[in-house]
């Protein structure tokens, strides 16, 4: 780690680039350098008002009021920059240019203008033989628009922090000017230009990097606390992140002279990615070679998915791929070498939802739709802020930079050039197609479409390479391991088409990552056994937090990654589960869907919002389980019973944990109930035979029951609840004894408890042993059941039982049968064991 720090420090001489051209690598080609020249430092001011003179005055005044250090001195005079007029035509000329007759008219007008107009022409015929530029400038005035450009000094443009400050100040001044113009009723002043976009983009990037980083870190920390139920692992996780980030940063700065700001935005996703290895390691009970192999295969497939990005011609993606590749390698090495070898596994069960049909439906859809909707237009890179978009739209309206106008101008020269040349006595007349007339937008679009097609091919190659890697490691299982990723990719292709209309370059690039990461899940879920599900789920959540958050970033490039990965990762996870080989069947367990984290969350909910809210949540959980689990529905065809059960579990939870707001538990007014309470309070020692009708666990909420109850139960069967209770119980009114430890000594111990005035509790409907146990003591025996009368209210049903064992059992069975008949939906038996 120290080596990483040193490398990063030594490589600190880097430059952060912010331009869209640097992001897509347009600085190297000659044509693109022509496009860039002359615009990087030009700010365009646009003013509209009811009078052309007023517009011009506003712009002049604004310019004069700017600090000296904002503007190159020669820009302070009026008139638009003539260098930007290369291919500009007014609307009237644009119409005339489109027809042969119109072009002839333009030529005649130009000849008249040069020969006989009393005012000297603005440009020489060599520069403007058809007076297109002059009429364009005149049209601005008639449209009551003033357009003025000024140049930012190199000291401002070259320093991104200074540029952001200057642009922020300019925006503030414009806002103040517009506010002073009676809310825009007198004039509207706006600003645009490459440096303005650059500054705003850079500022947004910085803000969003900060949000994403803090969000990801907070999520990982929170998840760690929930998963591990302890903060002790957080320093180790933080160390993993630090090592991987430093390694990635060092590689980045060693390989590149400058780094694009977008790379840093993407880089925040590494936080969710590298933590996966940590979760897999810490959550697995066995640190064996199988786990190591799975981690290595997972890492290798992700690296393969990054390889095409490293070879991409887009600098920002090359940089991101280098950063991620090295960070992941460092993270894996750190986990394998530095993490503890022996750790108790933490349980974290899952729910799985079959979406195979969904993806199978979508997968062929993407092929039926065809590959034509794979294209990328410049809008997919960047959406400008609204204030700039309005100014840009006005410029686009006023300034005809389309290739169509340029073609028409070329025709004008071809058809009328000789005539004008002869009439004006010119030596030559030649149309030089300006670079800007090719349309930066069209150039960018062409480049992006080429890159998109290239990326589609590379994605296919990457998938083949990944498949062969899986074939090498898993042989015949390779197809099954690869299938979820392939299906998820196909589904995401279709989803993007449906939601966005086209699949662009950045969606495809995100699919590289999706392919590599989704295979990780399959590798672990198909080869790691049941224990691998939990760490894989944690890995999914952290990746979703890291990548899903990107969807909310304002840059389309970044949000494309968020869409593909935010949806694609959970989809591939579910598909991997659905296609996973069947695991050995577990014994039917009551606690199939219980989660220690879930219990903690529910307890927190209860403490924040009260018992009624908790009941609502419990009912929702019950309904979900009933809907999603076939086995639950077969055990209980009626939804009501499951909801009663989940609510009773909630009550059990709060009573056992000693919460403040407990359900109301009231004993019925029968003689037996009164006798029971009197015996308990007087410390006589009572044996309670309970059943699975109602919720016996809420008995201690009965105010009169202040004695300790000793309960014997199958500890492992309800281990999650029992562990929760042990963690939270304050009053210790219930002491749980595992039934598995029941032996001869238990009778003596129990005898001591009951003789000391405590109560003994055992279920009578789980075997006849309870009756023998009860009969061994010369203490009152009661049948007790806590029946829910309504939400949060229980009635304690009490019947005194005979001391003789057979009579005891008969009466118990009789009472139980009658209770089941009266309250069938509170008879919580889910299996055949009695």
């Amino acid at each position, binding site marked *: 780690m120290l080596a990483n720090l040193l490398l990063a420090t030594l490589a600190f001489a880097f430059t952060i680039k912010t331009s869209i051209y640097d992001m897509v690598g347009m600085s190297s080609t000659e044509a693109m350098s022509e496009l860039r020249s002359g615009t990087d430092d030009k700010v365009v001011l646009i003013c509209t008002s009811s009078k052309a003179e007023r517009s011009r005055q506003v712009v002049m005044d604004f310019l004069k009021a700017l600090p000296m250090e904002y503007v190159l001195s020669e820009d302070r005079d009026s*008139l638009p920059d003539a260098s930007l007029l290369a291919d500009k035509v007014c609307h009237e000329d644009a119409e005339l240019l489109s027809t042969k007759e119109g072009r002839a008219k333009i030529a005649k007008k130009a000849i008249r203008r040069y020969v006989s107009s009393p005012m000297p022409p603005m440009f020489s015929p060599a520069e403007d033989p058809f007076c297109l530029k002059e009429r364009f400038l005149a049209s601005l005035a*008639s449209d009551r628009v003033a357009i003025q450009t000024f140049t930012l000094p190199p000291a401002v443009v070259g320093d991104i922090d200074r540029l952001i400050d200057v642009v922020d100040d300019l925006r503030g001044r414009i806002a103040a000017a517009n506010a002073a113009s009676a809310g825009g009723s007198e004039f509207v002043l706006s600003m645009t230009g490459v440096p303005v976009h650059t500054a705003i983009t850079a500022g947004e990037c910085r803000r969003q990097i900060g949000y994403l980083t803090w969000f990801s870190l907070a999520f990982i920390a929170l998840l760690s606390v929930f998963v591990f139920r302890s903060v002790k692992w957080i320093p180790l996780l933080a160390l993993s992140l630090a090592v991987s980030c430093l390694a990635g940063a060092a590689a980045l700065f060693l390989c590149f002279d400058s780094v694009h700001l977008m790379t840093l935005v993407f880089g925040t996703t590494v936080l969710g990615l590298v933590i996966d290895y940590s979760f897999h390691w810490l959550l697995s009970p066995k640190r064996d070679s199988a786990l190591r192999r799975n981690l290595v295969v997972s890492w290798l497939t992700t690296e393969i998915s990054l390889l095409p990005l490293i070879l991409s011609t887009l600098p920002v993606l090359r940089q991101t791929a280098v950063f991620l590749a090295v960070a992941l390698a460092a993270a894996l090495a750190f986990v394998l070498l530095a993490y503890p070898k022996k750790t108790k596994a933490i349980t974290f069960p899952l729910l799985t939802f079959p979406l195979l049909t969904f993806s199978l439906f979508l997968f062929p859809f993407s092929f039926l739709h065809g590959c034509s909707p794979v294209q990328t237009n410049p809008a997919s890179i960047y959406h400008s802020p609204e204030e700039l978009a309005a100014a840009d739209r006005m410029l686009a309206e006023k300034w005809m930079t389309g290739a169509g106008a340029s073609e028409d101008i070329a025709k004008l020269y071809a058809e009328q050039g000789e005539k004008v040349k002869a009439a004006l006595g010119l030596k030559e007349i030649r149309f030089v197609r300006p670079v800007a007339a090719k349309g930066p937008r069209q150039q960018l679009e062409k480049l992006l479409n080429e890159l998109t097609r290239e990326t589609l091919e590379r994605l296919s190659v990457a998938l083949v390479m990944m498949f062969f890697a899986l074939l090498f490691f898993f042989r015949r299982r390779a197809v099954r391991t690869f299938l979820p990723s392939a299906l998820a990719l196909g589904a995401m292709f279709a989803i993007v088409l449906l939601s966005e209309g086209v699949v662009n370059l950045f969606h495809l690039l995100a699919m590289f990552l999706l392919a590599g990461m989704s295979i990780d899940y399959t590798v672990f879920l198909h080869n790691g056994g049941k224990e691998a599900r939990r760490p894989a789920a944690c890995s999914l959540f952290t990746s979703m937090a890291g990548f899903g958050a990107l969807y909310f970033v304002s840059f389309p490039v970044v949000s494309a990654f968020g869409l593909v990965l935010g949806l694609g990762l959970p989809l591939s996870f579910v598909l991997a589960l659905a296609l996973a080989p069947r695991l050995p069947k577990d014994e039917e367990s009551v606690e199939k869907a219980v989660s220690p984290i879930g219990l903690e969350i529910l307890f927190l909910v209860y403490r924040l919002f009260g018992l009624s809210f908790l009941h609502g949540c419990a009912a929702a959980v019950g309904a979900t389980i009933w809907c999603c689990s076939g086995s639950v529905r077969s055990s209980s065809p009626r939804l009501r019973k499951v909801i009663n059960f989940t609510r009773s579990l909630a009550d059990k939870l709060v009573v056992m944990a000693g919460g403040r707001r407990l359900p109301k538990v009231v004993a019925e007014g029968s003689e037996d109930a009164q006798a029971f309470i009197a015996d308990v309070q007087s410390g006589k020692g009572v044996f309670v035979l309970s059943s699975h009708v109602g919720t016996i666990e809420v008995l201690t909420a009965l105010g009169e029951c202040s004695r300790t109850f000793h309960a014997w139960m199958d500890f492992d069967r309800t281990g999650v609840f029992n562990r929760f209770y042990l963690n939270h119980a304050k009053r210790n009114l219930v002491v749980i004894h595992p039934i598995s430890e029941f032996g001869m000594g238990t009778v003596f111990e129990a005898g001591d408890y009951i003789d000391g005035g405590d109560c003994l509790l055992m279920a009578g409907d789980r075997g006849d042993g309870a009756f023998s146990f009860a009969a061994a003591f010369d203490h009152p025996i009661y049948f007790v059941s806590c029946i829910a009368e309504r939400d949060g209210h229980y009635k304690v049903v009490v019947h005194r039982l005979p001391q003789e064992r057979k009579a005891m059992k008969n009466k118990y069975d009789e009472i139980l049968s009658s209770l089941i008949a009266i309250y069938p939906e509170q008879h919580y038996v889910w299996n055949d064991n009695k």
Partner: protein
Amino acid sequence: MIILLASAVMALRMALGSDADWTMERQLKGSDRMLVSSGTVHCAMGTGIVWKTTFPFESSVTMTTNSMVFVDEDGTRVKPLSDLPYYAEIRERTDAFAAGNEKAFEGIFDLTREEREDGGWKLVFEPEFSKMKMLVRSVEITGAALPTNVVMQAGDGSVSKISFREKAHAR
């Protein structure tokens, strides 16, 4: 100098109320010959000016108090002066100068005055700010009782010479 300027102002005032024939010779940058045109100008001070070309094409430009009207073989086009702020400003300043305001062109042109050998006068207007100089380097007006010649030098070196011959007496 004051007398000189007064003569020039008076001549300009008279011109703005009279008609004249004009001939223009224009040497444009890049052109290998002089472009010649001729026509008439009709002025009604305070009302408007009609600049009519008769050679080599028929066309006219009329400036009224609030608009400019262009007539040629393509038809008639009217543009409000509010859309042509430069023309409107020049017209206002010219009217003010002709009314006797010597400082009418201050802030936009530097004015120098010269006395000619034949007793006439010459006024030279040079734009004050640099971007305007790119369009018009100088405007020279010479005359005696009436303006007789106007020479405009453009920023690119083109030169337009307009000579006037009185056509009708002032109304």
